[in-house]
């Protein structure tokens, strides 16, 4: 009896420890980033980081505004390209295509998710950058180029999770709606999409997370200029690129400023996630 109880307790504690270790790593990362990045932000003032567009880290100017704007614009561009394509694909593959087509197309699109981001970047540099430069103007390294590549990169995430959530709906929804005389498109738009909403929003949040956090491909194709962009053909630098580009050489305050970049990225991702969660809650209530 006692032994069994002890064993129960042991297993409970073991599972607790495993669960805690995952949280601990998150806690460690946050503590590390904030302890390295916050002191310089407090010392220099948050204004100097958030509202200045002068990034001369070796001269003591740490304005991150161009990178914040860059990250948001590139992410927004990726969403504009990725969401319609992903949703349209998911609707077609679940509602209008034959099962055979879906069995072939879905795994192929999921393969896209397995392509390393450096390969996307390379394709971007070799094909898309000259294409944009020759047809739209500007240097080719631009918000537009980065958005196009990122939009394709988040496509498999949005598509495959949306497909899963549409397929998980009870067949009665569709059958009932059709039986009442609705067309297939009406059924999809008015019955199935609202019912699968939470899964679709989850897919969009995951896609957005990938777009904000993508680094390698963006460094290769966005041009990394530190000025505020005037048009979508201007080069930009994102927050993640800023860290990755300069980390190798940074020391002293420059290094701390890169951690401060991480702090801001952390906060932006939290804000975006909260907004997404709130809207999904409001829509479902």
């Amino acid at each position, binding site marked *: 009896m006692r032994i069994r109880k002890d064993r129960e*307790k042991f297993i*409970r*504690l073991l599972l*607790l*420890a495993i669960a*805690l*270790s995952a949280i*601990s790593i998150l*806690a*460690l990362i946050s503590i590390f980033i904030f302890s390295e990045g916050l002191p310089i932000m407090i010392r220099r003032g948050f204004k100097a980081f958030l509202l200045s*567009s002068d*990034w*001369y*880290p*070796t001269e003591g100017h740490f304005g991150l505004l*161009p990178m914040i704007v860059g990250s948001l614009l590139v992410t927004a561009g990726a969403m504009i390209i990725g969401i319609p394509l992903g949703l349209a694909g998911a609707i077609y593959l679940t509602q209008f295509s034959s099962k055979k087509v879906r069995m072939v197309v879905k795994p192929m699109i999921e393969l896209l998710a397995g392509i390393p981001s450096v390969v996307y970047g390379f394709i971007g*540099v070799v094909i898309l*950058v*000259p294409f944009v*430069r020759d047809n739209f103007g500007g*240097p*080719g*390294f631009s918000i537009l180029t980065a958005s196009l590549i990122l939009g394709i990169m988040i496509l498999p995430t949005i598509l495959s999770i949306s497909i899963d959530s549409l397929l998980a709906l009870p067949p009665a929804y569709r059958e009932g709606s059709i039986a009442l005389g609705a067309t297939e498109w009406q059924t999809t738009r008015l019955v199935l999409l609202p019912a699968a909403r939470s899964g679709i929003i989850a897919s969009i949040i995951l896609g957005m997370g990938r777009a904000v956090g993508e680094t390698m491909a963006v*460094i*290769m194709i966005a*041009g*990394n*200029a*530190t*000025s505020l962009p005037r048009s979508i053909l*201007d*080069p930009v*630098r994102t927050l993640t690129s800023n860290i990755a*580009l*300069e980390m*190798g*050489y*940074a*020391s002293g305050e*420059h290094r701390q400023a890169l951690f401060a970049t991480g702090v801001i990225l952390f906060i932006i991702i939290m804000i975006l996630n909260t907004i997404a969660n709130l809207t999904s809650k409001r829509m479902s209530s």
Partner: protein
Amino acid sequence: MIEKRDRIRGISAAGNSKMKEKDRERGSTGSSFFCLFFFWLFFTFFYFSCSLRPGQKGITVAGSTSIQPFADQWAEVFMARLPGRVINVQGGGSSAGIQAALSGAAQIGMSSRELKPEEKVLKEFIVAWDGLAIIVHPSNPVDDLSLEKVREIFAGRIISWKEVGGLDRKIHVVTREEGSGTRGAFQEMVMHGERITKKAIVQDSNGTVREVVAGDPYAIGYISLGLLEPRVKAIKLDGVEASIENVVRGNYKLIRPFILVTHGEPAQEARDFIQFILSEEGQNLIQKQGLIPAKLVCLEKLKGNSFK
């Protein structure tokens, strides 16, 4: 009787449930203690693992990523000559290399930029020279610029190729990232304290700068002289072609030293390595790669040039 038994049972049942409650309570305080203990263990574990250093063998050479590939070659040949010696070459950038030499984390630091005044406590050994070539697309009609014009282009004051005798197209300036030794050297020799325009495209290696310029007919950038390829065109500077001969003669102005630094006199092992690098064999190794051997550039001739 029955009543009594019931009461007893009731009491024991109550006792039982009380005991269970207590047990559960103890269990929960136990697990919250455990939580705290776990976090403590976890964090101290990381704390200590951070402060531990792996046992070091041989010597460590760290710093500039421009010098790193050459240092790798030197180390390889050196270790083949003298079995048992271990040279550990790491990157990290010029600033990191200098810091590592100052702190003792590396016996030798590598820097591809001049030392700042506060870093001058280190002992310097110039092991090679590297030219900086200003490059454009081969189809660009512009092939000669003055240093002044290059500065104005990179500062963003000249924005069209037309202003320097080329096509009526916007100039796409390509530069290296902040903190890079190549950018530091360029800034010192060409920009003279002026800032490179914020609109410049930033790439993080010599190779990618060359790649961008090779693909864009209206781009301008700067790379190591040794990395020139026919896919890009090096422009003449004030009429002087960017070539090793011109560097050796002292005509071409944009050159930077590759420096090894040690904290105080180098120890025996580090000195052997530096002596090997400066030997004929070590210098021949890098000459094949497009670098300029340390002895070929006469410091006297550099007087009056940008590099002091």
